[in-house]
């Protein structure tokens, strides 16, 4: 088990004047709908428990209204919880004094926002400097560090532009550079790429994965887009109506969806891009001379097999053959699971 950076324990958030009184009712099984109808309180988060490992990308996904943006704002306490704990490196964020909280936000955690949230009256350089300025870093060091991140996200030459002069993708690069410049260990990304068009979004995902290769930060990434979640997440948590429905690796979620809600979610994704050869292999060994690393995704493996004109290959891990895959296995893996038409579920 990797070390746990962020641990969320029994977290409840109920919006309304008497939120605390509602917690027992939710514990007794009140749903989001019944709480709203009977008590005029909105259930934001319902007993959320998540352990987030260090130096990985943790995706939290759900549709709008599922509580994901509420959840991420509890981590740096932009929203106060109704009940529960958020432990970061073992320290309860919710017990911090105002001064401790400010210090924590300045040094430990930074955030990227859906609509960029840049300061429109400041240049790109000043925006990237923002977190450092609040920390009180001296000017020369501030500019030097910011310049490094501006270059790193590919905005060299735009230092003196204002945000309104940049495209959405470029603005979000500024947002990313601003968040990285403070050297915080934890990066919160609230639907950071959702406002971008698909090609730019793809681009930004690659930038993020690229950066993560060398930075190894603990990234908590909120999205409503399952393709995005599966592509960048090391671990995924799926939320619905403020409650955790399933957590696991992308493979686990695609191969073994917890319920119809999740099944519905994954039904349209490109499974070949998520599943690796290990997840569809069978015992035995192939004699075709072709072999794949265990974590090779099907989308990459299948053309290789087709080109070599073979129907099976070995799967290797750490140089050892651990099984084999056939084209039939692969096609079986890609095929959509049985749909549950009988149980028509609707989601809001």
């Amino acid at each position, binding site marked *: 088990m990797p070390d746990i950076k962020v641990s969320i324990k029994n977290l409840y958030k109920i919006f309304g004047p008497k939120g605390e009184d509602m917690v027992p009712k939710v514990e007794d099984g009140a749903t989001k709908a019944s709480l709203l109808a009977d008590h005029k309180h909105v259930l934001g988060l319902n007993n959320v428990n998540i352990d987030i490992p260090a130096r990985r990308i943790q995706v939290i996904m759900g549709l709008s209204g599922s509580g994901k943006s509420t959840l991420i704002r509890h981590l740096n306490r*932009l929203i106060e919880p109704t009940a529960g704990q958020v432990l970061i490196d073992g320290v309860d964020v919710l017990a911090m004094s105002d001064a401790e909280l400010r*210090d924590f936000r300045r040094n430990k955690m*930074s955030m990227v926002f859906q609509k960029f*949230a840049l300061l429109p*009256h400041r240049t790109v350089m000043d925006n990237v400097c923002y977190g450092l300025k609040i920390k009180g870093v001296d000017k020369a060091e501030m500019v030097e560090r910011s310049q490094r991140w501006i270059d790193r996200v590919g905005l060299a030459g735009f230092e003196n532009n204002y945000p309104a002069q940049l495209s959405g993708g470029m603005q979000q690069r500024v947002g990313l550079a601003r968040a990285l410049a403070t050297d915080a260990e934890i990066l919160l990304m609230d639907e950071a790429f959702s406002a971008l068009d698909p090609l730019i979004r793809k681009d930004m995902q690659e930038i993020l994965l690229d950066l993560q290769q060398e930075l190894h930060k603990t990234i908590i990434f909120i999205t409503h887009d399952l393709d995005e979640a599966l592509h960048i997440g090391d671990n995924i948590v799926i939320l619905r109506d403020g409650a955790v429905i399933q957590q696991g690796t992308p493979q686990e979620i695609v191969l073994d969806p917890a319920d119809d809600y999740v099944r519905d979610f994954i039904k349209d994704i490109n499974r070949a891009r998520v599943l690796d050869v290990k997840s569809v292999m069978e015992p035995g060994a192939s004699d075709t001379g072709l072999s794949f690393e265990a974590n090779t995704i099907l989308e990459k493996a299948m053309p290789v097999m087709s080109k070599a004109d073979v129907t099976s290959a070995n799967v290797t891990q750490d140089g050892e053959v651990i099984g084999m895959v056939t084209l039939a296995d692969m096609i079986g893996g890609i095929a959509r699971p049985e749909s549950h038409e009988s149980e028509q579920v609707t989601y809001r």
Partner: protein
Amino acid sequence: MALFDEFPSLGRTELRDLKKGIDFAFNDFSRDNGEAIEHFFDPLMFFMVWFEKLLINAPWPLMVLIFAVLAWLGARSIPIVIGTIVSFLTIGWFGMWEDTMATVAIISVATALCIGLGIPLGILMSKSNRVQAVVTPILDIMQTIPSFVYLIPVVMLLGIGKVPGLIAVCIYALPPIVRLTNLGIRLVDKEVLEAAEAFGSSYRQKLFDVQMPLALPNIFAGVNQTIMMALAMVVIASMIGVKGLGVPVLRAVSNQYLALGLMNGLAIVALAVIFDRVSQAYGKRLQKHRQGGHDA
């Protein structure tokens, strides 16, 4: 059904006693405290007298030059600078130079006072819904109550002169700057504020780095409105002894001097147009960052 025929009002005696009571109470109050309050405002009065003399006694070419430079610094526009110079020269040519300087003096002091009081009050209002709930109706009263009504207690307390005139102008001109500061800060993008918070901004850092700069266009609209409303009060202020362009207008009204009234009235208009154009152009320049190819 006598009740429906006539409104059940207070009797004549009761009403008279009530009014008398209020009047006497205020009379006593102003007799006891009038002098102290007047002394409290002495420094302000000395400053106003000094400032007015300064503007009137300064050589006129110097003043025209100063106005031209200020217009240039504010608007960065040659047409506005030329308009300013031509207006002041015309005003002087028609013999209204001294009155105009006196008006400029009181408008400047009133605007500075309104900004100094109004922006902090607006900030306070934006931070607390309770303060807003209390202050808003007061501002409504200040803007709608006929000016003559609040002239009465002001004159009773302070007599006639520059200070009561200034107070009367400020009562009328203060609300827009307070309202627009409050509005401007409340309209600041919630996500940008959240970002400031997420990076660990202190209260001051949030106010001065984020809220005030982003509210600036609105605050500036408030300053502009305050100047305009202060100018609108010039004639009424002249009724309680404020020197300036209002005095000849008042004389023109009571004696039916059409030309005199028109000339001084147009001089007020000229001042208003200059102040308005310069302050608006300045406000626009403050937002040059908003002019981008793409606006989100």
